[in-house]
């Protein structure tokens, strides 16, 4: 298990390194680093001083090492617009995005699991076909359009839910959260549903496939032969087996949920990192862009790593294999 952990950790580090190279090349080779790292408002003197200070006159590989060194120290440059360290700026916006992404994941499981279970237990039923057809739509519809429709129906026409912002927040562990206030929760609903659409479809398909496979297993029949109630057979024997792939995939998808929150946050004016990055791209606040990308990539890699480890904890069979190895 430890050997496995170390190996996975090394792989992850390599990918992070590769990504820093890509980002570095993106910033320094494709764009003009002077333009990227030095505020456009600076005058000629300041520019030259900054170029020397940043070491932009030195060879490229040396510059890369400096870039890496600074990044390791958490220094990813200062935002031109806010004149604050880019990293700090992003960390401030992160809780809002995380909250949205968690709510979306929660919705995906809350809605997707029962629907997938239904469709898997009654594959021939008309209702199941409707569920599956809808899940195809969830895969192919652009999420921004669905978001607009949600606003049109629930905020404008019916006036049930607010469509912009986070609403009032309350503090927990030193961070502001929307879900702690009733009104904040109401603000959270529409964006979370919008962001969860793709994942709902995914969970429906995974659950359905898993159920169809599992109900044919001998152990399900054996559970029935033991005289267990149908609900115990389904909710314990079947569900526990399909939860492993469903949780794994949902967790793996968490990273892309955060990435796609860019769209949802723009529509619902949700003040998270996604909104920040789009605003930063508009005004070419490049230190913030680089910092955002670095953080997202790190998050992705950490997520992959955690899921791999979690998977081996969740599935007793995997656990044993690792002990043997």
């Amino acid at each position: 298990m430890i050997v496995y952990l170390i190996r996975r950790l090394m792989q992850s580090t390599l990918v992070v390194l590769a990504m820093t190279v890509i980002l570095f090349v993106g910033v320094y080779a494709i764009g003009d680093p002077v333009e990227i790292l030095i505020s456009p408002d600076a005058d000629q003197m300041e520019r030259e001083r900054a170029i020397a200070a940043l070491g932009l006159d030195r060879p490229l590989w040396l510059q890369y090492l400096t870039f890496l060194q600074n990044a390791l120290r958490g220094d990813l440059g200062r935002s031109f617009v806010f004149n604050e360290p880019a990293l700090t700026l992003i960390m401030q916006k992160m809780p809002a995005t995380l909250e949205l992404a968690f709510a979306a994941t929660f919705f995906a499981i809350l809605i997707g699991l029962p629907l997938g279970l239904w469709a898997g237990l009654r594959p021939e039923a008309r209702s199941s076909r409707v569920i599956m057809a809808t899940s195809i739509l969830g895969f192919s519809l652009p999420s921004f359009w669905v978001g607009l429709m949600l606003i049109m129906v629930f905020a404008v026409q019916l006036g049930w839910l607010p469509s912009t912002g986070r609403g009032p927040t309350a503090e927990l562990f030193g961070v502001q959260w929307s879900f702690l206030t009733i009104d904040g929760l109401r603000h959270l609903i529409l964006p979370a549903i919008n962001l969860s659409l793709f994942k709902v479809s995914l969970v429906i398909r995974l659950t359905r496939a898993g159920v169809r496979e599992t109900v044919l297993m001998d152990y399900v029949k054996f559970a029935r032969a033991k005289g267990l109630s149908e609900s115990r057979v389904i909710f314990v024997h079947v569900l526990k087996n399909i939860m492993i792939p469903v949780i794994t995939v949902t967790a793996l998808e968490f990273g892309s949920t955060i990435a796609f929150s860019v769209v949802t946050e723009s529509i619902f004016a949700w003040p998270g990192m996604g909104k920040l990055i789009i605003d930063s791209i508009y005004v070419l606040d490049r230190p913030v862009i680089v910092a955002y990308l670095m953080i997202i990539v790190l998050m992705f890699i950490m997520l992959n790593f955690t899921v791999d480890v979690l998977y081996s904890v969740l599935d007793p069979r995997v656990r044993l294999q690792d002990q043997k190895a």
Partner: protein
Amino acid sequence: MAPTLEVRGLRTHFFTKAGVLKAVDDVSFSIEKGKVLGLVGESGSGKSVTGFSVLGLVDPPGRVVDGEIIFQGRNLTGLSEEEWRKIRGRDIAMVFQDPMMTLNPVLRIDTQMIETVLAHEKVSEQAARARAREALTQVGIPSPDERLKAYPHQFSGGMRQRVAIAIALLHRPALIIADEPTTALDVTIQGQILYEVQKLCRDTGTSLIWITHDLSVVAGLADEICVMYAGRIVERGPVDAVLDEPLHPYTRGLIGSVPSRNVRGHKLMQIPGMTPSLLNLPPGCAFRTRCPRADDDCLVEPAITEPKPGREVRCYHPHLLDTVA
């Protein structure tokens, strides 16, 4: 005394897209308290479906279409799902063929045993656990306390089958249906389990239906045997009588093809041809196309006759002693 189980004219058909598959077609047998009935046949002869029918566990598109299943004087056909559930595991238990598949891989042994107890009795969890421990000891599993906390994959195949048998014994059922429970095991373990099951049944007065394709297994175990072919019982009688003097040509073929019963150097007898597809059985006797004794009479389905006391056979030309050359 009334038999523990009496099955009369059971028909279980599968309504598939390709047509109606008559997996069990007019099957009748009965079993006394504490006796062992061997249900013998090739794969696809309907013996497993017969077992599942008695438990009310035929999966769609299959359905019991006709017949009576009288268990302890009560007709089970037409029971509600909840009434069936109360019988399963408590009055009639089942042991499956593949021990690798019958235990749920993601649930611990104690969970799977305790839920069986609690499904039928309102006892405390401690009491249920004590029962589980006792049952494990009964089937010869050492250090049951430790084993209860283990997952199925931590057991060998033979051990798992013992656990499955222990689960079947939890409620001291009046009848256990064992569907080829030793086929997937090593020969030595097979012998141990056969011996123990026989002992347990004798001690507790449990009746046993032992489903197998292996005549040598039932030879030492069963009191009575039924030979099935293509969904019908073709011969039924006390085990010694049937094995010593098989009446039906098919039984004769089966016995002839068991190596141990032949003298060394002699050619093993074999039954020509293949098991017919149940979807399009030829009219008349299903064994007709492979039978050395078939003639035009066999084009009409033969009825069950009793050419000798206690012996039943479904054939126009049984091998009665005087006719054997």
